[in-house]
């Protein structure tokens, strides 16, 4: 068969699906010698199950998860996709001006106690001598639920994923600091990718050409979305945003997060962040893998 | 006065699966007063149990009225059902206590149980008793409850002769001590003649009163010979109820 199929499982309304739709709409897959099969799923957990069950070739995830899975029977690899990262949002008129102001406030945290954004925030606050873990009232919850709660003034500040933050931004909320901001303040002056494609090492070695074709198609599609309104409008329904401001916020965030360069510097930065995370998150987050394995990143040029 | 008036104009049941009805009782009227003891005799399936249930107010879905001294019946009653109807999860004593109330004297209860031959089974559960023993527990329950009206639906079947004799004697003693009206259903005419002041004979359903016979033998003289003779007379004088004798 001439066109080799690649199966990818992603969130139906996730940002990656915008890229994938564009690849298919513009025939970028055929052009790169593969056939894209998208399996939309309803939760990020579902895609991880799919990967473990060998029911899919590629999923989207972050590198902490990939690092933690290292050593379990199958090794996964990470190819960067986006550097869009979460942020801390507060209401526009909020008195909170800096991280130190979070003391005693009701802080919503999307995800769990091991959420990267939250761990990095804690690390930064600790440098100022504040243990946010004790000093703030934490409310963990599902991202959409928290987004709703802050709009009902039940939260003073909210750490959420970037596309949820973007929706808040569109509603006039203020970004206190983004994750990249925190990372910078922690002394790492490189913008690192957060999200990436994750796949099985064995599969990648067998299907190198198709995989690389897919990765370049992905970049191409992302560029199309940022440069061509026609393509952007085609995937607009997937954003499920009704008002123009939100749509614009989402597009800005998406385009800003494109990876332009991924080299030794970035790998080192990620490794440094990983070490930082280990200090706060501990065994739980990292599992038995104490330092980041540099072989975890898929090296496109080498193959 | 203690006068119970039973007046059932019409009692029917819906028939299985169709809109027809089955009339169980029609124009049945009788009275009893002054702590009378009446027996009811009638063919199987004629409506005796239905009648007792109506009197006990367990079933008020009929045309007519049942009154005590011209008021609707509100007093306590005791009812020996056709089946024992004991609570399986309560012991013999507990079953009786529940019906009698907590304040009643334990000794009088155990005394009655003793007389009915259940002295060893005070703490047994009903499922561990023979059917005849269960019936005796139900009897004891009815005897222990103080009431103005005692209803008994074939209470002495499944008992051997000597136990039945004892039970009959106990019933009469009790009735003399705490006088009350008694309605006693039986198929055994000998028993009826031995016990009753009056016997009501009921017809096949829809049942009405066929005959209302006063027992003329004085209570002291109801020997088996006298009873047999009375029965013989009855057969001759009332041919309408011959089939029930």
């Amino acid at each position, binding site marked *: 068969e001439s066109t080799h199929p690649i199966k990818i499982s992603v969130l139906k309304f996730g940002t990656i699906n915008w890229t994938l739709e564009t690849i298919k709409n513009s025939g970028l897959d055929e052009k790169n010698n593969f056939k894209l099969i998208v*399996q939309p799923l309803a939760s990020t957990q579902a895609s991880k199950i799919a990967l*473990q069950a060998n*029911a899919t070739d590629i999923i989207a995830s972050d590198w902490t998860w990939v690092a933690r899975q290292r050593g379990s029977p199958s090794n996964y690899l990470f190819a960067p996709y986006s550097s869009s990262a979460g942020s801390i949002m507060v209401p526009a008129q909020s008195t909170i001006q800096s991280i130190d102001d979070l003391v005693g406030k009701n802080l919503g945290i999307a995800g769990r106690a091991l959420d990267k954004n939250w761990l990095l925030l804690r690390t930064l606050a600790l440098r100022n001598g504040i243990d946010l873990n004790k000093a703030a009232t934490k409310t963990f919850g599902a991202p959409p639920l928290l987004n709703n709660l802050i709009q009902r003034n039940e939260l003073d500040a909210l750490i959420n994923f970037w596309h949820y933050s973007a929706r808040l931004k569109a509603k006039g909320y203020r970004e206190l600091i983004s994750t990249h901001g925190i990372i910078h303040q922690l002394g790492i002056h490189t913008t690192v990718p957060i999200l990436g494609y994750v796949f099985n090492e064995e599969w990648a070695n067998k299907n190198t050409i198709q995989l690389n074709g897919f990765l370049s198609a992905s970049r191409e599609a992302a560029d199309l979305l940022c440069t061509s309104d026609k393509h952007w409008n085609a995937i607009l329904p997937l954003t499920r945003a009704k008002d123009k401001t939100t749509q614009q916020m989402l597009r800005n965030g998406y385009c800003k997060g494109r990876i332009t360069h991924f080299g030794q510097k970035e790998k080192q930065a990620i490794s440094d962040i990983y070490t930082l995370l280990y200090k706060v998150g501990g065994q739980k987050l990292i599992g038995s893998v104490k330092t980041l394995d540099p072989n975890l990143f898929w090296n496109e040029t080498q193959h | 006065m203690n006068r119970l008036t039973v007046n059932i104009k019409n009692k029917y049941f819906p028939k299985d699966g169709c809109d027809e009805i089955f009339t169980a009782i029609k124009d049945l009227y009788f009275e009893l007063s002054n702590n009378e003891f009446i027996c009811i005799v009638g063919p199987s399936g004629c409506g005796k149990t239905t009648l007792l249930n109506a009197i006990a107010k367990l079933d008020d879905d009929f045309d007519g009225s049942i009154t005590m001294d011209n008021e609707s019946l509100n007093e306590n009653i005791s009812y020996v059902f056709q089946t024992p109807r004991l609570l399986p999860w309560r012991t013999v004593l507990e079953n009786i206590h529940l019906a009698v109330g907590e304040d009643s004297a334990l000794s009088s209860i155990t005394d009655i149980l003793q007389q009915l031959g259940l002295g060893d089974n005070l703490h047994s559960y009903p499922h561990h008793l023979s059917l005849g023993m269960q019936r005796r527990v139900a009897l004891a329950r009815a005897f222990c409850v103080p009431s103005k009206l005692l209803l008994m639906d074939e209470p002495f079947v499944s008992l051997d002769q000597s136990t039945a004799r004892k039970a009959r004697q106990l019933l009469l003693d009790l009735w003399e001590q705490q006088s009350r009206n008694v309605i006693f259903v039986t198929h055994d005419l000998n028993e009826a003649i031995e016990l009753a002041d009056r016997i009501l004979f009921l017809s096949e359903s829809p049942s009405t009163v066929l005959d209302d016979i006063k027992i003329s033998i004085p209570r002291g003289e109801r020997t088996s010979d006298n009873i047999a003779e009375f029965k013989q007379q009855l057969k001759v004088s009332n041919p309408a109820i011959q089939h029930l004798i």
Partner: protein
Amino acid sequence: MSRSSFLNSSLSLGLLLIIWQLIAVMLDTSSLPTPILVFDTLLAELNNGELVHHLGITLYRLTISFFLAMFLGVAIGLILGRHEKLNLFFDSWLIILLNIPALVTIILCYIWFGLIETAAIFAVVINKLPNVVVTIREGARNLDEELIEMANAYRFGRNKTLFHVILPQLYPYIMAAARTGLALIWKIVLVVEMLGRSDGMGYQIHLFFQLFDITSILAYTVAFIIIIQLIEVFILQPLDNRSQRWK
């Protein structure tokens, strides 16, 4: 359904709708839309065909797993309820099965079988089965021994005893398991579809949840409840009436 009972349920539903409307208006939040909005959405989703597609698939999964779980559950429950020794042995297995989080069984099923239909249905059955077993077991422990003795004395044999003596006595337990079971299976199907399927009501509802689109979630829920209500009125209640005729 007779005319009076139709009137009755219309009244009852009407009252419910009014209460809902009042609360929605009082709260005035996007998280509790008014019934009108929900029904509008329901109609829109019906028209574009999405709802029908996902509802159909979910009902398909629900039906298969319901009958599988009920059939196996009644059989196992009956056996455990009648054989004290077997029950003693398997009781702790049952407790374990009953208390494993749905999440764990679902993940294991998917990883075992792959993300396929069989895995989904198997996961649902595994989750529902112990509930049926426990309910039926209580019923089987409380059968009327007198009737079973009668059946033995007259040499009814296994089948006759089962169908004419035992199952009629288990009827209320089976109905309890069926009524709560439909609801439970539906809830499990929602999770199963969220974790590994690309269609079905659970998949849709979780997508809506990510967008915090409560209106659509409610519209889908209402659609499902209508189906269940129809099953209740046209299957379960007539069954009830028929089998309680003797009372």
